């Protein structure tokens, strides 16, 4: 028996082998390839297109001298903090909290309205957001109806526009996560606190939030990583412009790799993006761990 036990345990892992293989093939391999390419002068055309040579950390050294890069890092962090951590996350929690108290038809209606943006394919959502914020778009027509002259939002406030669009598109995810989490909070603890005279805010801060802490961390992790990778939405709405004022790292990487054909440099930017994702990821894992102390 004892000899068979480890064998049996290994066999238990068998069902996950295909998915692990697929992940390695389609996720790890491109990441590794991209990481490797970032140390070469790989290009779309020109002399280095088919026979790229190893250039060491040249691409990374160039990042330090490129004025577009730090600006892009700042914009990426602003985009993630404003649209994911603050926007989607808090708004999702708020809506989920309100929905647990709202009457059924109200909560069903709100739920559908919020999820509608989520089910749209990204490109459709991006065009919808473009049509909303563009100069002759819905927003300006609504403003005109009440006598306000709008502005060209995508040109004057490109970051605000893409942040709002991403909040609109992504809030549903946080809302769904928090609805499930809130449904799991035992009513009796809350009621006991109520008996002890805890106010609504106190119950939220001392009872509900600690209980759904792991959901918060998971949700933060997921929305952060999703938002870091947002490309289509920004590309369709502003294409990174005007004058790079909405060029986040994915947009910058795309421009360098495909518009200028400099795949080596583009993949170096993409690698920085992965590192940025790791930094956020580690922070959230810490948050999760804290719970088990």
């Amino acid at each position, binding site marked *: 028996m004892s000899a068979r036990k480890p064998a049996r345990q290994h066999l238990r892992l068998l069902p996950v082998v295909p998915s692990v293989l697929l992940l390695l093939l389609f996720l790890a391999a491109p990441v590794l390839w991209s990481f490797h390419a970032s140390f070469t002068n790989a290009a779309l055309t020109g002399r280095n*297109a088919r026979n790229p040579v190893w250039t060491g950390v040249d691409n990374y050294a160039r990042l330090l001298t490129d004025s577009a890069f730090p600006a892009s890092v700042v914009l990426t962090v602003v985009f993630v903090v404003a649209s994911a951590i603050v926007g989607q996350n808090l708004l999702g929690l708020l809506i989920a909290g309100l929905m647990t108290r709202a009457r059924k038809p109200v909560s069903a209606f709100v739920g559908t309205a919020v999820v509608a943006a989520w089910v749209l394919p990204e490109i459709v959502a991006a065009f919808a957001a473009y049509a909303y914020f563009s100069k002759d778009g819905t927003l300006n027509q609504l403003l005109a109806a009440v006598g306000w002259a709008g502005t060209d939002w995508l040109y004057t406030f490109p970051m605000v526009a893409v942040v709002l669009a991403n909040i609109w598109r992504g809030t549903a995810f946080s809302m769904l996560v928090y609805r499930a989490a809130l449904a799991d909070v035992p009513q009796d603890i809350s009621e006991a606190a109520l008996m002890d005279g805890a106010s609504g805010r106190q119950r939220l801060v001392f009872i509900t939030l600690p209980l759904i802490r792991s959901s918060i961390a998971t949700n933060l992790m997921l929305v952060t990583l999703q938002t870091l990778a947002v490309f289509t939405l920004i590309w369709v709405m502003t294409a990174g412009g005007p004058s790079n004022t909405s060029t986040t790292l994915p947009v910058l990487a795309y421009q360098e790799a495909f518009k200028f054909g400099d795949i080596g440099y583009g993949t170096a930017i993409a690698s920085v993006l992965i590192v940025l994702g790791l930094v956020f990821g580690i922070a959230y894992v810490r948050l999760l761990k804290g719970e088990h102390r």
Partner: protein
Amino acid sequence: MHRPARLLVALLSATVLLATSACSPEQPLAENRTLKIVYQKTDSFTALDTLFKDAKKDFESANQGTTVVLQPIEANDDDYGTKLALALRSEETAPDVFYEDTFKVRSDVDAGYLLRLDSYLEKWDDWKTYNEAAKAAGTADDGGIYAVPLGTDTRGIWYNKKVLQKAGIAVPWQPRTWDEILEAARRMKAADPSVVPFNMYAGKASGEGTVMQSFYELLYGTDSELYDQQEKKWVVGSQGFTDSLAFLKTLYDEKLAVTPAEALDANVWKKVFGEWLPQGKMGAVVEGSYAPSFWQKGGSYEWAGYSEDMGVAKFPTQRGQEPGGVSMSGGWTLAIGADSKNPDQAFQFLATALNKKNSLAFTVASSQIAVRSDVAAEPDYLAANPFVKDVSDLVSVTHYRPATADYPRISAAVQVATEAVITGKLSPQEAAEQYDKTIRDQVGDAKVLQK
């Protein structure tokens, strides 16, 4: 316990089977070959699609056993170039015959994507009808010819006579200096503040349009240049560069061009051709010789009155210095992939697509300037639209882009400079300095010439 294992084995073997069958390339039989043709098609550019469909019919009936597979890519010029380059990177995906921008020929030859055509062209009688400029367009740094042009183009000022006449400007109009353009534009603005008097593209959104149909007309008309042909170096610190930016600033600051927000919309050219010029909302625009292709019958923005309402003028030099005008030329070619398994057949297809009949149809449908002498002499070509002669005359003052592998970065840096100026972010002087710095960073000091 055994069941999952067996299932897994079954799954794995199925995967392996699938993978191997997908990987083993189908060996083309001698009698059953396919040629893959890749080209661009958009809602407003279908002339090439028509050309290839006709050529496919002709070619397949003459060459039994060979199948021509047409793979149009629906994308704008930039995205088409990217997709094509990605396909060319691997032998498995590289097309046999493809549509290639002249300014990409050299860098793609450097990359080893294109097949040298000299030995085929020697035996192709039609090649003698191509003019020298066209032959040069497909020539790489090693002197070999790698691409055959479909046609070429020039650029000039397209103006709406009615708008000019309303402002009391006599037509035909031919400004001699930059100042005369501004003067006329201000008069149009004064006569009707709602019109856009004189538009020149700017900013990154218009891509090559910003440089080909705007900035280079200015720069090449100053005493400075973009690239020193003798030294093979990019010029920085030139007065002409700053002057050109300053001219754009004046146009945009005085609201003589479209608003900066409109200029930074990638679709601005559609409004120029589709709305503003036909509706008399725009006085003039610097645009290509292909403009009539949008307005003629079957074009994307049919406009019956264009032949009477529109006029063409040469873009003047800065102070009227010699040669008195500036134009830019580009154009597209057909090329054959270096990895083509059937290069002989591929060339035959190329020759079919570019024979006199097909060339003529394409040249007329897309308002190209003919590169074949027999097409240029055809009455159908000369009568295609009233502007054929005007735009063909611009060939005498035209320039070509310095199409080295660094060119896309230079072009992008110019676009950034124009965008910074028209949005008021930088002064022309500052934008020119930033351009100089960018160029030094991007191509290295060794390839830069300080003026």
